């Protein structure tokens, strides 16, 4: 007995690149009209002969899978893997070239936050308009209106034209509408990629709510942390095909290790290596204590950052340094090589591997982008700086022994250290008694 929510069978989608440019000109129209009368009235479909210059791309090839009701499935893969095309077909925006899909239940698709918003209309008017575009009836919107406005936190501006809203307010309002569609099947694409971190967390929270209510969710994101937290199952797409389909941890590992994602390790050949005639950067990589290169680090474990460089001409003093940025572009810190063995000492020619250890429970959750530089300090001479050498994710589990403890909500901050907390306790305190001065003598009070 089938209990599927979504059944996808052999779906393929063909795009012709350059088609738009070729057919938007009157000249081509006339050429076509002469060559084949009335042909220009037809949309181009698979099977028609290809004209020179047109490039055919199979965005999806024979994709099949089933999703059961209540499942939360992540779709991952690098840019152009076909994730968005698949989501577009499931939400009926685009039609497949071959194959079919069957959907059992009301579908809400969130391919973009704020679709159909109009700048001249007020927040209130936009809630109704956007709600209608997303498939809600007038009565349904009216019923949920207060809830939507409260979720978006825009009560005071609800009758102000949208053009006076800040981007953040607009995004919150848009997501609030979308989050209240209450479909049985929710398709979500990258919406979390927009807005500030706090907004992203709010969206994630709402989405796990949806999932917890037994609804089916298909979720496309580049955010490995979000996928790991939300989805039990993952489908990995590459080149329009299903590469792997299974439990998130397995699929995510394959994705992260296969070099399909933005890399946590990069190597250069000598010819293309950044640097000058004295020193060249050959590799930068992030790895675990076990020496394993990975894109996703457990927040509790230390991260080793290797800078591999060749000194071509001996006799220079060199200080490797690392620049760590988070996904909002905040420079979390800069670290200079302090290894006493080479501090202020000219280096002979040869290969060097300098490793910096970022302790566990230090970086916050999220994506980090690492810049690597090699500098001579006196006088200051930046010999090379590779701005976005590598990137990796830090993932905070909810096991309870990281800095978040038992708290599952949004934790702001660029670092997330586990601090030592201690408590002193006095049972009977008279209200007039002043607060004791700080005891400087160490932990033990007299």
């Amino acid at each position, binding site marked *: 007995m*089938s*209990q599927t*929510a979504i*059944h996808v069978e052999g779906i393929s989608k063909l*795009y012709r690149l350059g*088609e*738009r440019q070729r*057919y*938007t*000109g*009157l000249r081509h*129209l006339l050429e076509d009209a002469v060559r084949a009368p009335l042909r*220009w*009235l*037809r*949309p*181009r*479909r698979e099977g028609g002969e290809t004209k020179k210059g047109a490039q055919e791309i199979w965005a999806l090839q024979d994709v099949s899978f089933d999703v059961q*009701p*209540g499942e939360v499935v992540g779709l991952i893969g690098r840019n152009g893997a076909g994730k968005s095309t698949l989501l*577009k*077909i*499931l*939400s*009926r*925006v*685009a*039609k*497949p*070239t071959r*194959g*079919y*899909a*069957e*959907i*059992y*239940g*009301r*579908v809400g*698709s969130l*391919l*973009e936050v704020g*679709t*159909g918003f*109009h700048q*001249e*209309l007020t927040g209130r*008017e936009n809630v*109704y*308009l956007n709600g*209608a*575009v*997303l*498939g809600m*009836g*007038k009565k349904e919107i009216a019923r949920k209106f207060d809830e939507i406005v409260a979720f978006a936190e825009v009560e005071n501006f609800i009758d102000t*034209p949208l053009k006076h809203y800040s981007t953040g307010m607009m995004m919150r309002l848009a997501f609030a509408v979308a989050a209240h569609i209450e479909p049985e099947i929710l398709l979500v694409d990258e919406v979390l990629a927009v807005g500030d971190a706090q907004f992203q967390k709010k969206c994630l929270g709402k989405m796990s709510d949806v999932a*917890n*209510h*037994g609804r089916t969710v298909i979720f496309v994101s580049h955010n490995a942390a979000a996928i790991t937290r939300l989805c039990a199952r993952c489908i990995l797409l590459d080149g329009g095909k299903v590469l792997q389909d299974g439990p998130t941890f397995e699929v995510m590992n394959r994705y992260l290790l296969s070099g399909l994602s933005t890399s946590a390790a990069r190597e250069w050949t000598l010819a293309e290596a950044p640097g000058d005639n004295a020193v060249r950067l050959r590799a930068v990589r992030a790895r675990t204590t076990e020496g394993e290169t990975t894109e996703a680090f457990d927040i509790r474990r230390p991260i080793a950052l290797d800078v591999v460089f060749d000194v071509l001409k001996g006799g220079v003093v060199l200080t490797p340094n690392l620049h760590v940025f988070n996904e909002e572009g905040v420079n979390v810190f800069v670290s200079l090589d302090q290894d006493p063995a080479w501090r202020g000492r000219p280096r002979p020619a040869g290969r060097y591997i300098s490793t910096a250890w970022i302790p566990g429970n230090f970086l916050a959750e999220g994506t980090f982008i690492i810049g690597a530089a090699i500098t001579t300090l006196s006088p200051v001479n930046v010999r090379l700086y590779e701005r976005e050498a590598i990137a990796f994710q830090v993932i905070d589990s909810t096991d309870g022994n990281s800095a978040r403890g038992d708290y599952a909500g949004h934790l702001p901050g660029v670092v997330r250290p586990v601090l030592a907390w201690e408590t002193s306790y006095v049972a009977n305190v008279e209200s007039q008694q002043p607060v004791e001065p700080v005891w400087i003598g160490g932990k033990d009070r007299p």
Partner: protein
Amino acid sequence: MSVSEAQLAQQATAPPLVRIAPPKGWFAIDLREAWNYRELLYFFVWRDIKVRYKQTFIGASWAVLQPLLTMAVFCLFFGKLAHFDSHGLPYPIFYYAALLPWTYFSTALQNASSVVVDQQQVITKVYFPRVVLPFSAVISPLVDFGIALAMIVVMLGYYRMVPTLAMLWLPVFLLLAILTALGMGLWLSALNALYRDVRYVVPFLVQFWLFASPVAYSSSIVPARWRWLYGLNPMAGVIEGFRWSLSGHGQPPGAMMVASAAAVLVVAFGGLVYYHAMEGTIADVV
């Protein structure tokens, strides 16, 4: 909370709500589905109307001013100076009665031909029956039409003209104008998604059509035996119909009307079929 067994069992036997497959068939417009989306149609129309006169100084007065000013120019040049034949109607009535449907038609046609491209943001992100768009584009200018129509009541009063039973035919002529705009709009909006040339063709087309319709002149200048051919321009029948039904003077546009109605049906039906054929690919090419 998980889906209950009963729900699962029900789902297992229920047919799919949606089956997504490659487009096929030359005429398979799901009218029931389109009907289910009537609220969205209402919202699109509502938005157009709301937005149209935002941040304007005189707002909806534009709906009256546009035909009124054009009427003044026509009265001066074609009436007072060129002495065109007006069936014995006062020039202001003669021109305003023609400009009413013409202003509606030209606005609706231009709206409809650009609606798919204008709404590409929505089309590429959300599903709804695409046919809702041209419908909304020809419905929303009806509000302006209604406002402008009120003005002619004032004018008829000024010339002490009493409405006759011919007035009852007005909705029929209006429907014909709507269908003409819709039919052309369906063709042009779908073509516009493929070929942006349409953007340049439409203003020219509207201007051309104005001269080919009896707005500035009376269709009586066309020899009687060619009148039916002239009627293949649906707006010819519509405009003469408006003059006749509003003023109660002259003859109803008989043979010309039949030709106009036939032409409209062909254009509108063809437009619907073509638009539907393009529907599946619009999101890919727009």
